[in-house]
């Protein structure tokens, strides 16, 4: 779920923007200029993946993917997610433009955390990788849900009910995404393990 315009207090929106811009600026400076176009192209595939809807009982949910993006991109994940959310906002109105900063934090921070945790826990076997994938995917969604609730709660006591509901709504998504994330990681481990081994765009500046 993305926050629409007009929900958050202006101060929170602006603070979100400030933090996001700082984060993006940091990523841009830290990343090798050769990697920027690559991050952009990969981001489009994450965007497309997040459009896939999976049935959940009578309704359907779409994937949020902060965990996987984090695991694959590492520190570049925040930049990638911000670009993705900006495009979702201007193309589909998923998430308001004024709330873009808050939305980026909500999805980007779990992704950064996933990027930090994943290489440390993934181990060497297919099973341990899959488990790590499940953990970061599910955990990423849960954390995004909690951040969403926290952001909503800043809007005042009236929103606490909605905030609780939002967290509750993230729980089924969390299970689905944990499953998909685990399978994706297991698949990558079998087919192209180097994508998991080096967080492709995070290494030290390489010669080009």
């Amino acid at each position, binding site marked *: 779920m993305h926050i629409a315009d007009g929900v958050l207090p202006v101060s929170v929106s602006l603070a979100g923007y400030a933090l996001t811009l700082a984060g993006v600026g940091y990523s841009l400076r830290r990343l090798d200029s050769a990697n920027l176009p690559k991050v952009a192209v990969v981001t489009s595939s994450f965007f497309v993946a997040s459009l896939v809807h999976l049935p959940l009982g009578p309704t359907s949910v779409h994937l949020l993917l902060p965990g996987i993006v984090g695991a694959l991109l590492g520190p570049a994940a925040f930049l990638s997610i911000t670009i993705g959310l900006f495009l979702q906002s201007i193309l589909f109105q998923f998430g308001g433009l004024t709330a873009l900063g808050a939305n980026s934090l909500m999805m980007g921070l779990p992704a950064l955390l996933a990027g930090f945790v994943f290489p440390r826990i993934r181990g060497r076997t297919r099973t341990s990788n899959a488990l790590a994938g499940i953990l970061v995917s599910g955990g990423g969604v849960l954390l995004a849900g909690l951040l969403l609730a926290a952001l909503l709660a800043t809007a005042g006591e009236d929103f606490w009910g909605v905030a609780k509901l939002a967290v509750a709504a993230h729980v089924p998504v969390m299970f689905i995404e944990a499953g998909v994330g685990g399978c994706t990681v297991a*698949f990558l481990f*079998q*087919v*192209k393990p*180097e994508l998991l081994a080096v967080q492709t765009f995070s290494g030290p500046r390489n010669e080009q």
Partner: protein
Amino acid sequence: MAAQPMPAGDRPPLYSLRHLTYTYPDGTPGLREITLDIFAGDRMALVGRNGSGKSTLIRHLNGLFTAQTGECRYQDQPLIGALIPEIRLRVGMLFQDPDDHLFCPTLYEDVAFGPRNQGHREDEVDRLVRDSLTMVGLDSLCGKPAHHLSYGQKKRAALATILAMKPHVLILDEPTANLDSRQEAVFKRLLHEYTGTLIIIEHNLLFLHDLCERAVVLADGRVYHDYAFNDLLSNPQALREHGLDFTFRFAGRNRHYIGAGHHHHYLPTHDHGTEGGHLTPKDSGVPLIELQHYSFCYSDGTPAINDINLGLFAGETIALVGENGAGKSTLAHCLLGLHRGKGTFLVDGRPLVKGDWPLLWRRVGIVFQYSADQLFCPSCWEEVAFGPQQLGLSPREIELRVQKALAVVQLEGFDKRVPLHMSGGERKRLAIAATLSLQPEILILDEPTASLDPKSEEQLLAVLEALPMAMLLITHDLFFIRRLCSRTIVLHQGLIIRDYKTGAFFADNQLRTINGLDNIN
């Protein structure tokens, strides 16, 4: 076998490669000890099987890869460091997938990218962009984003992005893959007009025929031969050795003669009518699937196919031909129930009712043009078992079907292999196996020969010839049509304009011309 260098005269070489060796980071050898001179004005074909190092070699020629051991010199300067960015502005490189070249928001920006990097003034850039777009016939589309173009247009646009830079050297990686003959002819004309040094990687030796004067054969990362192009063509043994032997295409003619009114098979397995073509077996009077007055429009209202009347009978093999964009794939998708149009859809002579649509896939299988779209499992076994698993069959039955399907496509023992790491030809056959395991009554193949090397084509042909079910073959490949199909259907702008015996089709020069097999529009 040592390389036989072309007589070079006294010209200094443009590129001189000495003992060039390249190993990929994962340890796969790419090039071994390549020694080769390329001269200014050379028109060179670079041929060899998939995986023989051709792509690795051309990447050294504009500094995408730098020499690990050995040397790569351009005009007698080693191609390293500061020379590389400079070289790239003079050496144009066209990769296979045009989408990789078109990374800007509009076609104009894409073509302007190179000239701007060359440091031209904006008015000069504008002139170069317009000139090169006019040259490839896309000047009217210059404000469009790339995703609005058709595949052939994209391919030409990608060429324009490079021609706009006025390169001294033009390197092309499989320029004709997935193009119909009309587009191929356009490419050939453009390459004829180009006067600089030309290096082309291509399997289609017929395309190269009057374009290249020199042929360098690579095998296992080595220069195996360095011929004058015509010498290569006249040396069938060398062709066969390198999996380049497209002559099986001509050899077939002797056994499979099609003349006016006659049609013989090498192995006479079924009856023939007096006027050519196979006779429909008498006991299957009702087609497996029949479309009557069937039309389909895209959601934006563009008609894709119009008033189609078509029946597919058990055991027959039909060719579906037509220029790019004639609606062939759309028709195939309609037969699968992926698109639902207006008109009557009969299965076994009975109209399809609403609940039957989702079950059509059990009877009709399709092998898509790009294997990459179809292969998404981590192992071949899982790939082939995927369909039967959806059918809910017992594990024993699944195992049986998987093994049978793998055997039919000559991939026994590939169970554990990762589809992504297999060669193009193997992947194509795996995709066929994945469909065969569903035991369809009709198999649709969309451009099965696209981007295969001749060796893989030959294997594919053997597999297809042995398949018993009804087949619909969408292809531009006249040879495959001749060998496999009894009936040919010609689609033009969404309409079936001919449905006749293949023999009659081959006799019909005019229609072949209309339908992009020679020329169109």
